[in-house]
């Protein structure tokens, strides 16, 4: 489902070239729960941007659902993100002035889904992410960190994506809340068959996944199934 072949990403700053990713190849099948683990500066963020269709590689091919998306333009990438990818960020990135429900509906707004259908799907996503219905009309500043991150997970789920990308989702949470959030991911993978890629620098977090790809200096240094 995801095929990454010889992907490189080179940043140029005047004369200086920086190779963030160097000839990376791997495959991910539907329904896998993968952690991409590496220290900061290892290139894992760059890899996440490419996997999340936020960026394109300098060379190599990236096929998502059989389509090569490594050469698309901005708007075509936006289409891919809208229909096939759900993001969960370390800093949540909810809209502070919008209700929980409105936040979760946002991807559907851009998809052009309307009215009741939109509300129904947002409600279902929130339920799947484990947020109580009582909070649906709250603003994000009325929620706890764990609840906020579950809203963000629901937002990532709502467009029924091929792939959920979580970038250090527990980075801003205490360890107990972090466990609950990671448990939510595990449940989504086990019970709903979601494909999840977790980006982290922590071994304990990575161990929630069923496969860990370790990356260092832009290259894969380990790929273990558990």
């Amino acid at each position, binding site marked *: 489902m995801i095929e990454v072949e010889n992907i490189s990403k080179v940043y140029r700053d005047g004369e200086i070239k920086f190779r963030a990713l160097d000839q990376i190849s791997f495959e991910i099948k539907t329904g896998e729960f993968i952690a991409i683990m590496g220290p900061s500066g290892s290139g894992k963020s760059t890899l996440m941007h490419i996997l999340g269709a936020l960026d394109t590689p300098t060379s190599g091919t990236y096929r998502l659902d059989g389509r090569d998306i490594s050469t698309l333009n901005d708007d075509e990438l936006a289409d891919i*993100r809208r229909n096939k990818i759900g993001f969960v960020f370390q800093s949540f990135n909810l*809209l502070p002035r919008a209700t929980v429900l409105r936040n979760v509906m946002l991807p559907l707004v851009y998809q052009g889904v309307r009215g009741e259908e939109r509300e129904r799907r947002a409600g279902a996503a929130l339920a799947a992410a484990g947020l109580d219905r009582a909070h649906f009309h709250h603003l994000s500043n009325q929620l706890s960190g764990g609840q906020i991150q579950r809203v963000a997970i629901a937002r990532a789920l709502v467009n029924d994506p091929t792939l959920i990308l979580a970038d250090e989702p527990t980075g801003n949470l205490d360890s107990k809340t972090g466990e609950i959030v990671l448990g939510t991911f595990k449940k989504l993978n086990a019970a709903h068959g979601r494909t999840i890629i977790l980006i982290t620098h922590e071994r304990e977090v990575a161990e929630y996944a069923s496969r860990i790809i370790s990356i260092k200096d832009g290259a894969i240094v380990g790929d273990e199934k558990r």
Partner: protein
Amino acid sequence: MILADLLQETYLALSANKARSTLTILGIVIGISSVIAMVSIGQGAKIQIQTSIESLGSNLLTILPGVVQPGRGIVSSGRGSAQTLENEDLEGLGRIDGVAAIAPELQRRFQVTAGTGNNTNTTVSGVSPDYAAVRNLTLAEGAFINESHLRNLGRQVVLGATVATDLFGDGSPLGKTIKINKVNFHVIGVLAGKGGVGFSGPDDMVIVPLSTMQKILAGVDYLSTISVSIVDKERMNEVRDRVSEVLLRQHRVSEADFSIISQEDILGALSQVVNTFTIFLASIAGISLVVGGIGIMNMMLTTVTERTREIGLRKAIGAKRRDINRQFLMEAVALTFLGGVIGVILGWTVAFVVTALDLIQTQVSLASVFLAFGVSAAIGIVFGYYPARRAAGLNPIDALKYE
């Protein structure tokens, strides 16, 4: 993204910072309301001029001796010295189809003295009985010049309202005697005050029989103007051409030695002055509108910077360049449009108050209201364009990292 969602996003964004939105809108409000108020004052002035000119007779052709060229005044000979209009011209003019009445007139300025010792230098007009009807004159008291006065070289005089006050104060001048150029005249009537425009309004003149004027006071046989009133306003141009033909034939000349001016010509000239004045006022008000627009742009640029992360997020979950562009453009247009609505209401109120206080006549035209809405929306688009483009062009990765 459908319109309803776009409007909801816009509302959320603008209501998030009410103080800032309000202050930004204020710039547009001031601009739009001053444009509306200024234009309404200009329109009011125009209408005022129109009504006062129409009160002098709107279906009137005035024939003057000599040639008047538009914008250059009288060439070849001054109006006072040109002597091309004569009593013989009247008969031919009277036979033209569509002419209701003809009022010949000879004007001179003379010293007028009353028995009270008051005296004034005013315009003395020798006229025929039709003059009152043609010029829309009404009498406050007494009677107007009639045919028998005309036939007998009568020494009767009708006073204009101002002259009557100048000579006799508040007392009634009827039956009194005044001296015009040392000749005694008997006051038989006083005109109702008209408050007309210009320097030669009927308030500041005295009226005597035309024959008396020509033979006794001035000692000439020509006319200074002939006023022709027309049956139907629609036939103004047709009658004007006929009048011209008749006079050319009568005077046996190929090129006109007279001028025909309609009230519309005068109205046109004055309207042009007022229009220029209105445009001048409106452009000053327009400048404040531009300043308001710059305020909008300033606020939108600040907003885009503040909401960089939000823009990054929106892009990450699938918003296209176009979606972001529309969202921010919509915010700018919503600000200016709201400012436009409030500005129109405020400008209207100002115009209303100015009229109510009897300062100046105003008239808010629907066109200026629509124009104000159009302009305010256009300002939103023009000044929102650059900030929106900047927002839409942000790279989602950089935007998400922005602190």
